[in-house]
């Protein structure tokens, strides 16, 4: 294996199997779906016309039904991201200051759910959020509410469940950046007379900020495209983009419109990720100048 100089064609041969596989099984299907989104659907015959028309995109842009769905999806994604940052970052910090064996044990408890199927975790919330669930019973016992309440099929319920599904990613991301942080810099600042709040704000926060930012990006992108949790907790009434695309494909059978919704979701996701990355890079380039 040559280390320097011209590697010749070897790296291309090594990546060729993967490249061919990805080009065929990722490139072609995505392109087919892009084409499909410009076709039109005949409700009378249920057939697909292969004329090229922007009609599906115009419908998404003009119809207030789709505005509500996209607005709800990105609103929920922002809220979930914010809550995950507000509770996930402090938790990662607290974890980092624990001692073993507690540290390893609680890391396992908090990251472990990432390996448990999202269906199982969502089922757990469906059990807790219903009118006979633990939340309703608990609030009644405490005398906060007098009638049973159900958070199923509400935005509140959806946000709670999504935060649960996604907050481990935030903890993980902040945890990774805390591994590089020398916790003794805090002691140094304290010795030099800074109070605890100043230490958090001026010493800890700037160092874990990259972790919070990359965690936020992951949480936002995954929430905006989440399907199973919004579908089970939100039901058919509180549709999000992913559940709308699902219904167009498998209920209405209007594949071209479903394809257009999917393309818009994909493009919005890619734009959000790349512009966020660029913004973060510019911000940190300034700090390190």
């Amino acid at each position, binding site marked *: 294996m040559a280390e320097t100089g011209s590697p010749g064609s070897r790296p291309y041969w090594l990546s060729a199997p993967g490249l061919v596989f*990805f080009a065929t099984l990722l490139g072609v299907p995505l392109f087919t779906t892009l084409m499909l989104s410009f076709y039109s659907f005949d409700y009378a015959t249920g057939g697909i016309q292969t004329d090229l028309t922007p009609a599906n995109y115009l419908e998404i842009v003009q119809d207030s039904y789709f505005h509500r769905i996209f607005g709800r999806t990105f609103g929920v994604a922002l809220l979930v991201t914010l809550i995950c940052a507000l509770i996930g970052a402090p938790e990662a910090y607290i974890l980092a200051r624990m001692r073993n064996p507690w540290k390893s044990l609680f890391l396992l408890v908090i990251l472990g759910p990432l390996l448990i199927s999202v269906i199982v975790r969502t089922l757990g919330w469906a059990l807790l959020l219903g009118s006979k669930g633990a939340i309703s019973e608990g609030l009644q016992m405490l005398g906060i509410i007098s009638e049973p309440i159900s958070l199923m099929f509400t935005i509140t319920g959806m946000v709670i469940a999504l935060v649960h599904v996604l907050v481990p990613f935030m903890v993980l991301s902040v945890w990774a950046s805390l591994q590089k942080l020398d916790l*003794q810099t805090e002691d140094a600042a304290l010795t030099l007379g800074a109070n605890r709040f100043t230490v958090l704000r001026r010493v800890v926060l700037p160092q874990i900020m990259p972790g919070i930012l990359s965690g936020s990006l992951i949480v936002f992108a995954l929430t905006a495209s989440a399907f199973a949790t919004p579908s089970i907790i939100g039901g058919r009434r509180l549709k999000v983009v992913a559940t709308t695309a699902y219904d167009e494909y498998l209920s209405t059978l209007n594949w071209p419109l479903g394809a257009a919704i999917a393309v818009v979701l994909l493009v919005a996701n890619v734009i959000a990720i790349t512009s966020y990355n660029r913004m973060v890079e510019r911000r940190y380039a300034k700090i390190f100048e």
Partner: protein
Amino acid sequence: MRRNGWPEMLFHGLFVIFILAPIVAVFVVSFTDKGYLSVPSDGLSLRWFRAILDYPGFIDAFWMSLYLGLASATLATLLAIPAASAIARYRFPGRGMISAFFMSPLMIPHIVLGVSFLKFFSDIGISGTFFGIMLAHVVLITPYALRLVLSSITGLPRDAEQAAATLGAPPFTVFRRVTLPLILPGIVGGWMLAFITSFDEVTMSIFVASPETMTLPVRMYHHIAQTIDPLIASISTVLIVMTLILMIILDRLYGLDRLLVGKG
């Protein structure tokens, strides 16, 4: 280093309760002795675990998910190993683009992959087949396998390989006898993360699975969409226990935080 005070411990306690609450809820409900959803009050019962055996649909779906995970994780790892060694070892034109291309499925919402495969597979006539679902899963999980293999190759010193090459070993022998044993932990970790991701995947699989090739999460989704009963809770409890065992093994072998950094 400062210790955590009581406000921190209180916050931590609430956070852990929040994380465990839904999992505990599933666990508790699955032991009910009633015919409907309830907390077991007159003693624990295993009737809903026995009931699983009367639903071959779920048993078949479990085996389907298992075979699918084994096959697609193995294929994904086989694609990832040469690609990772190219990206980690060489500087060549197009390197950045190739690596971004391999990672791109992470940026694509699963629903978009699902609808794309649905159309593509029905165009080429393999929709609903095990083969089709397996190909779709390989695309989805290759980035996870690639990341962990990549990080294990990147951190590897070259001395041993160069010594072997100097002593006249052909490149493939060097790889098989020197490199492979050294990067094996990365390969095993990548394979496992790929397997778990495949086994748990639901959103994309909904579109590519037919009733005969339905995976366990897809069947569970369809069941929950219609009715939530103790049966689905007992199936979930079985899954939780299996995941727990796997989790402890993975943590011992590899460190759960190190493994999962590849998931983000």
